[in-house]
């Protein structure tokens, strides 16, 4: 019956948002905006979203003397999987980040995978990579034990090094890979592990978001002047990438609320907003700088505690913009406006209210 929220600290997100969004200063900014002849609105929205995606992912982990390769079936379009997955792999193996290469998107090489959608990539990748690394460590112990004539249990692994106290030998991954290749032709092209993983439990990224807008009552034009958000993404592997995802997501959601409409002429079926000349895109000069903060409440559903960072920026954005517009237009009666809330709709709402 229903889904269980995996984890979250919702009230703490809201408290933190009030600080980073400077809620305490909002009253003064409202007075200043009104003194300049603007209608001022503040919006606040909380969100919880479900992230799941296809349940299966595969990783091929290969350690060669020249470096580590991970072949995986997600498909980035600028989300930086090559970077964040290499961070995870390097950290778990105990090797330098620069030695790890992530291979994606080539069906000659990638045999299976679940793709990229529904905030699944970091979660699935970190889970399947950590399982593959565990298998690889066992494999490494067995290979070293075999070549030294000791039991696998007598080989220890820590911090990227295999140690055999009985023989006083210590090797790193790359030496071990060389050793393995001389030991058996099976390892001529590196030590390989193929790991499949399935996860069927959704995670629930969540957060709190606020924005402030100013409306020019003469034109109905909206200026988005402040925007702040706190997003619980679970474990954050690469904050720079996650903040970048949030920024882009905000612009997607704000665009939907304010400008982006797929208008079709009802008579002819002709799309009327088929090019950038007619379609309202977020632009440099109608976006503010954002204040974004990541809250890391680890998810108990997967080894790294990852939730998702891809959709959090977008999810509350239409709600927070529309609630700010509603706030700004309160004196003109109940809101009767729909997305995208264009200057014409706002101007009409103002004039209907005045009539």
């Amino acid at each position, binding site marked *: 019956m229903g889904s269980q929220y995996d984890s979250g600290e919702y009230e703490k997100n809201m408290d933190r948002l009030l600080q980073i969004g400077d809620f305490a200063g909002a009253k003064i900014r409202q007075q200043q905006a009104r003194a300049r002849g603007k209608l001022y609105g503040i919006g606040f929205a909380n969100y919880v979203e479900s992230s799941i995606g296809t349940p299966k992912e595969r990783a091929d982990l290969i350690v060669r003397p020249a470096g580590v390769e991970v072949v995986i079936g997600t498909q980035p379009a600028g989300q930086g999987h090559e970077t964040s997955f290499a961070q995870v792999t390097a950290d778990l193996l105990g090797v330098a980040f620069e030695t790890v290469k992530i291979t994606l998107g080539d069906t000659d090489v990638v045999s299976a995978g679940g793709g990229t959608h529904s905030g699944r990539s970091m979660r699935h990748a970190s889970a399947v990579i950590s399982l593959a690394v565990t298998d690889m460590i066992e494999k490494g112990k067995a290979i070293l034990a075999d070549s030294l004539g000791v039991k696998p249990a007598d080989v220890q692994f820590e911090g990227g090094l295999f140690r055999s106290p009985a023989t006083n030998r210590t090797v790193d991954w790359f030496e071990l890979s060389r050793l393995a290749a001389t030991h058996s032709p099976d390892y001529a092209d590196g030590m390989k592990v193929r790991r499949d993983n399935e996860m069927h439990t959704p995670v629930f990224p969540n957060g709190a978001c606020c924005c402030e807008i100013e409306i020019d009552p003469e034109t109905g034009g909206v200026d988005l002047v402040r925007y702040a958000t706190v997003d619980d993404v679970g474990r954050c592997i690469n904050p720079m990438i996650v903040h970048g995802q949030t*920024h882009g997501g905000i612009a997607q959601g704000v665009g939907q609320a304010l400008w982006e409409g797929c208008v079709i002429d009802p008579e002819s079926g002709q799309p009327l907003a088929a090019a950038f000349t007619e379609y309202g895109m977020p632009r440099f000069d109608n976006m503010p700088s954002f204040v974004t903060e990541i809250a890391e409440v*680890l998810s108990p559903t997967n080894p790294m505690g990852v939730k998702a960072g891809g959709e959090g*920026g977008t999810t509350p954005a239409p709600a927070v913009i529309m609630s700010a517009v509603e706030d700004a237009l309160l004196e003109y009666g109940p809101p009767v406006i729909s997305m995208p809330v264009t200057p014409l709709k706002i101007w009409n709402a103002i004039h209907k209210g005045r009539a």
Partner: protein
Amino acid sequence: MSTIAMTVNGMNVTTDVEDSTLLAEFLREHLGLTGTHVGCDTTQCGCCVVHLDGVSVKSCTVLAAQAAGHAVTTIEGLAKGAQLHPVQRAFRECHGLQCGFCTPGMIMAAAELIATYPGKLDEHVVREEMEGNLCRCTGYHNIVRAILTAAEEMLGSDRVVRPAPDHPPAHAKAGG
């Protein structure tokens, strides 16, 4: 068909082109310089910005023949060998790109803005001046930071007003 001559990234180029050939098409199809991207083909998105005698132009609405006798610089010609241009470096350091499609045009437009803007560069100026370049991934946030970072390197800190630091101090992490 006309014979045209120009310099592209410092190299002399002389070739026959159809009169209707656009500069973007000439650079990409004739010279193989595919760093210049064509996003909208209607001068809206800015992905195709190159420099014509040091001035930013949207090369999807310039005829190749109009560039005859002039110097064209594309994204491929911005770095000095292995040394990236400060704007290229700043885009990398500030995470000013995600999918990368708009990036060549962003960098070319920003490089010209920094090189030619007479006054102080701040966030407001950058946002107004760069309005003709569209990005669907970044929300522009990190691109603005990249441009101001490069501007400070190229012009000095007295010509640039940097925005406030990005992230307020983190609160106590969950569970600890």
